[in-house]
Structures are given as C-alpha cells and as structure tokens.
C-alpha cells in the first residue's frame, strides 16, 4: 500500500498561495526527491505533511490515514513513524541541550525511559561517524557538517517508516556525504525506510532517488523515474536546471541553457504557463494554462515539451 499519498495540497500565507496544488505518492522503501527553484515551496510541502505548516486544502494520507489538519495529540503516535530533518542544522537544535540529550530526545518523548540512553547515544553517534565524546558537547561547539549529522542521528533514532529530509547533505564534504547516503540506502534496504528528500545537489538526486518531482512556483511541473528524467528531461525548466549543474573540473565548458528574466512573483502569478516568460523554448500556445498530463508514469505540465533526445 502507498505509504504517503499527498493530493492537491494548498498552502497560503495571507493572500499568497505558496503551494498551488501539489500531489505525489511515495511507496514503502522508496526514495522520492523534490527538487526545484529556491522559493518554489519544497520546504513548505514537507512541513505541511508533518503538520508544521498550514495546509488549507488537499489531503495527506499516511499509511491510509488522513493526517492533514490532525491535532498535535493525534499526530504524536505518528511522530515515531515520520521523522524530519530540518534545513538549518544548527538552528534546529536547541542550544541549551547537550548532544546526548538531543539525539535521545525522541526516545524520551515516546516514553522509552527504560532504554539505556547513554549506550543509545553512543550507537547513534557511531552510525553518523561522530566520536562518542561528542555526546557531552553543545550545538555551538560543532561544525556545520557535524550539526547536520546530529540531525540525521536524531531522525534515525526511532527507526521511522518515513523520513522527510530537507537538504540532509548540505554542508557535508563529499566523503561524509557519501557515508551518509550509503547509510540511508542501507536502512532503506534493511528496514524498508521511505524518504522524501529535498536537495539542490543534483549529484545526490541521481544516486539516491528512485523518482523525482520538479517544483516551480508552488506546483510540480514534471515527475518521473530519476533515470528517465536525467536522460530525457521533457519540461524546459527541468532541462535548464539539469544543464546548470557545475562540473568538478575547471576546464569543463558547460552547454548551459540560460533562464531568462527574474524569478516569478507569487503576488502576480504569470498568465498561461507560469514558466512562459522565462522559458527559452516558449511558443504562442503557451499563453494557455498547460494541464498536468501523465504518460507511462512520467508527469508533465507543458504544452511545448522538449522532444525525446533533444536534451542530449
């Protein structure tokens, strides 16, 4: 059964529609990546799923149960099954608690006092490759990447069914990043852990995500198998995004497709296709609103998509 089923999610702050109908599904053991423009609503999506941001419309089903608008009391039993990794690593750890208290907090909230918390702290630190003596430190005594790893340990503590991870590897060097992703891959295989991962690092997406959704201005504009999308992006925005990824080679000459113009305004959404004014491939027909169309599991919101192979 589908583990997470998000349908037509809407979030507004005042008059501003930050999410304008987001839908996607995640199966048990699946990793789903949300990528897209900064400010397009990715963090809001996972915060709304976890009940940390408003969602005025739509539905969020976890394990078949509707959880949108659930009260904190109703959500509490689910906090064990759904874990969250926040976008700012240091800011999300309370400054007055030691790392030991922070990573074993989930056990205490769930009332699992009987566990040997010290041993648990040691095990969790080891899992994210931090030395055991870090248990006595405070968040400000950690580097950015170390704080990030504490956030990961905390999220994994209760062996959840679903992790909502906001930029889980930002600020990590490539070796630690590799360790962390290998660890998550391993948990996925052993425990059937499912993940929604938000990341701007396209290299990470390619290696961990089974499927990916690309967001623009509060909506998905494309969705499909990661491999298919990398090989054959159909939406011009996806195409621009993938072509921009900097290569780790000072001599690389990238064939970038430049985006025109400014990031769009939420106050005055563009008419027709909302990407039209910046789209290098826009046609006259794009002044009509493109519908969401799905073909062979590949979803697309574009009236003039790239042809197969055009991106190569």
């Amino acid at each position: 059964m589908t583990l997470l089923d998000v349908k037509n999610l809407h979030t507004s702050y005042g008059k501003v529609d930050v999410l304008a109908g987001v839908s996607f599904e995640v199966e048990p053991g699946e990793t789903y990546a949300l990528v897209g423009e900064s400010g397009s609503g990715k963090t809001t999506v996972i915060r709304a799923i976890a009940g940390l941001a408003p969602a005025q419309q739509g539905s969020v089903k976890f394990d078949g149960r509707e959880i949108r608008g659930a009260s904190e009391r109703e959500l509490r039993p689910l906090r064990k099954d759904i874990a969250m990794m926040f976008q700012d690593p240091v800011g999300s750890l309370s400054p007055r608690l030691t790392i030991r208290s922070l990573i074993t907090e989930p056990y205490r909230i769930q009332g699992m006092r009987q566990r040997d918390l010290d041993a648990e702290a040691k095990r969790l630190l080891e899992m994210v490759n931090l030395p055991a003596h870090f248990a006595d430190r405070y968040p400000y005594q950690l580097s950015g990447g170390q704080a990030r790893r504490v956030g990961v340990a905390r999220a994994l503590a209760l062996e959840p069914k679903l992790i909502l991870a906001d930029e889980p590897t930002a600020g990590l060097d490539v070796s630690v990043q590799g360790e962390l992703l290998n660890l998550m891959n391993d948990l996925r295989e052993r425990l059937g852990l499912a993940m929604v991962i938000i990341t701007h690092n396209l290299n990470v997406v390619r290696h961990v995500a089974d499927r990916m959704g690309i967001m623009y201005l509060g909506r998905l504009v494309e969705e499909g198998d990661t491999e298919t999308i990398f090989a054959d992006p159909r939406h011009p925005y996806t195409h621009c995004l993938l072509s921009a990824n900097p290569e780790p080679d000072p001599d690389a000459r990238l064939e970038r497709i430049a985006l025109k113009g400014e990031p769009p305004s939420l106050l005055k959404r563009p008419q027709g296709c909302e990407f039209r004014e910046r789209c290098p491939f826009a046609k006259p027909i794009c002044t009509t609103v493109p519908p969401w169309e799905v073909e062979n599991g590949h979803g697309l919101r574009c009236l003039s998509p790239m042809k197969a192979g055009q991106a190569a």
Partner: protein
Amino acid sequence: MSDTLLQIDNLGVDYETARGDLKALRDITFDVNRGEIVGIVGESGCGKSTLISSILRLTAPNTRFRQGEIRFKGQDLLPLSERRMRALRGEDISIVFQDPMQTHNPVLTIGQQMLDIQHRSKASKAEKRARAAKMLGAVGIPDPEARLDQFPHEFSGGMRQRIAIAMALMSEPDLLIADEPTTALDATLEVQIIERLQELQQQFDCAILFISHHLGVIAELCDRVVVMYAGAVIESGDVREIFHNPKHPYTRRLIDCDPGHIKTRARVLPTIPGEVPDLANLPEGCIFRDRCDQALPCCAHQVPPLTQLQEGHRAACWLNHEEVSA
C-alpha cells in the same frame, strides 16, 4: 608594494574544552591577493569556519589564539582593538555566514536590517530603501519592494542565503568571505550567484575567500584553492593544478569521492574510510596517515612539511620528497 591583501602566517588557534585543548588550527599559512578568488575545501570539521571567524575575530568564548599573525593590507589584526575590528568588518571585509540565521535578526524586518547596515551612508531613507530593494532584486528575490517588510522566517532557506549575500555586497568590500553561501540554492541560481560574484570581483577588484564543499562550484569560480585537513593546510595551488594534478593523497581522494564524476547511478558511493584524528590528542607524524593508502614508514613519526613543489603549488606529503620516497 605587493598586491597581497590578506596574509595568514603560522596561525594557531585552540578551543579550550573539558577534554583539554582542541588544536583546531595549526600553522595555517596562505595569502589572498587583491582581486583574487580563493577557495577553501576540506573535510567537515577541519576548521574552515574557525579560520574565518578568527580572521574576523568573531570567535566562540572558549577560543584561544596561540600563535601567528593575520595581516590585512599589511596590518596585523590580532592586536587591534574591538572598535577597530568592528569598523573593518563593516567596511573593508564582509562576511556571509554558513548559517544565514546567524546574519539575520529574527525580530527585525529584512528592510530594517538592510537600512541599518547603511548607517554610514548620507543618503535619505527612501534612497537607502531603494538601494536595498535593488540589491534583493540582483540576487533574484521576486517582488523585492514588498518583501522588504517581511521577517526572516517568512523567506525560504535559499532566499535567506541570498539576502545574506546581498547584504554582504552592499558595502562594496575589499574582501568578501563567504562560508558555504550556496548550499540552499538550486543549480540555476547558484550559477547566477557565481556570475554576480565574478562581476563584483572585476568591478571593484574585490578579493573573495570562498568556502564550499561543492567541488563543481570551486572549480568554476576560484583562481586558487587551499585544501585543509584536521586543522592544517595540506595543499594549496592554482585551481587547475589542484583538480588535475593533486599532490596530496587527501586531495586526490576527496576529488575521487565527488559523485559529480559518476554519471550512472551508483549503489555505493565512494568514501574515504577511517576517522579524522582527535584534535585534542593529535597523532604523531602525518595527520592523514591512518587513512592514507600510500603511507611510507617515515609518515608514522615525522610530520611532512608544507613544501613548495613548483611556483604556487604547495603540499604537505612525504611522497613528494624523493630522498624519503625513493
């Protein structure tokens, strides 16, 4: 006069902890020239943020400067008064912190904060506000005018990062220090920000010290690269040399680990096995030896010096010394 803007000489910085002194920086030596973009890369926890907070003297209370000099335009910064340092930070040197929440005051609107940093300017309030909006627009924040009245938590992570960059650029500094300023930016914006930084550097001959784990960004933006490991500089050189001809095993392994090289889905990503040494209890010999796959007998008890291998390229590894590696 040489065109050296920032000169770090033999810098040693400790953190005092219950477990003893943590030797967070040891013998750090490198220069940044006017108009140059220097990248710093290295393992998470190797001391990059400690280094830049030391330059700006914005360190944690348990920090101890043990030795060395930090010279900016020829002047040693360590003996300067707090007041002089504050003036320097506002005008000559700007910083973008790793965690943008460190830059933004949560209870003031972004507009107020951007007015406050222009307190030295004689311009009218309306002009300052217009200038703030223009800077926000320049880093890709839509509706900048309206957005000035919002509070930091009302912006996305990447927007907060871009606002921090915009604020750092407002004073047209001689030196911009940026600690992972693009981690929350999508690839297209990241490229746009890189281009802005390059423009700035050309327009004002501003030097940039740029910390990032994103090797692709380093390769694209920087002229020179400093590689750090466990509190020490282990290699430095021209960006091409570092990427194409690394002379330290750590640098080589780091580059090999970048998934950016691997174009098909990998089941297991490459890593550098082993652990970073405990900075409170440093091992004898080369600090990378435990994890090095090319270690020689002498690596166990002698610290390899950071030696110049050719013009501008230095590395600290015994493999580059024929007399011991032969």
